[in-house]
């Protein structure tokens, strides 16, 4: 079956590739671009582990075709740090101990980044609404919420 030509931006780099028409964006990121920070959890769009930012909005890359991402701006967890310097959300997740097994963390951080990019000072309810899009089976939401709160308003953080 013929492949389909796509051009997209991934973490600021322009990527051109011929992808199978039935390939998901997740498969392209992990298998072709070797960006394995994005995780596959349920594979059916329910859990949010595979969340990336697609044109600034969090999207589940396991139910998104690579072909659908043609022309899009994609940000994965690998795109957050600047060199050795971690993104404030990543620092905050470490400071607050918001990581247990770590499998949901990349998706959780990108969902949180999507929120903070739209709204620099979200209320606690808004944070809960956002991160409840992602499942954490260690059920460590309390610290995740604290980590996002601390990033949103660092002056209030202790």
């Amino acid at each position: 079956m013929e492949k389909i030509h796509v051009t997209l931006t991934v973490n600021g780099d322009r990527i051109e590739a011929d992808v199978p028409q039935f390939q998901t964006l997740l498969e392209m990121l992990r298998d072709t671009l070797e960006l394995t920070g994005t995780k596959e959890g349920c594979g059916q769009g329910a859990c949010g582990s595979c969340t990336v930012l697609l044109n600034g909005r969090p999207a589940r890359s396991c139910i998104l075709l690579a072909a659908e991402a043609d022309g899009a701006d994609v940000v994965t967890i690998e795109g957050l740090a600047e060199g050795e310097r971690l993104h404030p959300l990543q620092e905050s997740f470490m400071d607050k101990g918001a990581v247990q097994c770590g499998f949901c963390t990349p998706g959780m951080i990108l969902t949180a980044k999507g929120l903070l990019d739209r709204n620099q000072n979200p209320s606690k309810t808004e944070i809960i609404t956002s991160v409840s899009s992602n499942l954490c089976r260690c059920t460590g939401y309390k610290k995740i919420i604290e980590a996002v709160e601390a990033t949103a308003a660092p002056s209030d953080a202790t």
Partner: protein
Amino acid sequence: MILPRFMYRKAVSIDEALALYKQSGSDALYLSGGTDLVPRVKLRLAKPAMLIDLKGITDLGTVEDENDWIRIGALSTITDLKENSIIKEYFPAFRASLEATSCESLRMRGTIGGNLLQNSRCLFYNQSEFWRKSKGFCLKMGGDKCNAVPGAKVCLANYASDNAPALLTLSAEIRLTGPDGQRQIPLADLYSGKAGKPFLLAPGEILTHILIPKRKTTGDYEKLRIRGAIDYPLLGVALSTFDGKSRFAVGAIGPKPNVFEVDSLDEQRLLEMVKDARQAARPAPNTVVDTAYRRDMIAILVHRLAGRATEEAK
């Protein structure tokens, strides 16, 4: 989970989408947000030769006035509609059902057209092909038995759109374009009442718009769910009131939502309405909670909505 092989084509107009459908030999599915469709294809519940992406048809993503109607493009995302000021002001029941849909990330991707045309669901159907084969194919998969209710002669899958009940209370209509032209029908006429094939759509038809009479209503939506996010409804009840007349719609408890009109919200009328709704409901043991509980919750959700409406009217 790997997708089966299919062709992907992106249409930039309805005509092009219809031409692609013809080109596929009528073996295509239309793709919008993909939040319902792609998981279905992954589970091999649908095996189309072609997916026709409609997202290139940009004029299907807007909300506009059309005479005495509000016309909503079927590709509008749930989030875009939730944030729309006209919907907030005129159709609070719809606003509430949009907010209750799934979770924030999926609301940003999923569309209203896709939400209405999501296929009916069952714990014994929305499973991998391997799982389903081991159990034996059920009525909805073309088999001859029901895996949820042994002995059942018809499919009992659940239609779990949050937004359909709200739109039904608002007397919404839908516009469809297919190989044989365009038609507009009441949303209520979309439903076959048969869970195996829940929609009365002609092959190749595209849902292009949802139209709601433009008049200020009051109302709300109540959803029975286990978690506060992501879940499909286990029961959904919407209420809209306009000009002294109230309409309830009860959904996610059978193959289609049912509408009940009442001329007042006093207790006697509500009890009669609940009795009718319980009778029309078709709950089956195919969700994560007990059927009797779901049926009993109709009265609770109806009274919650009516209580709030009466309080607000004071």
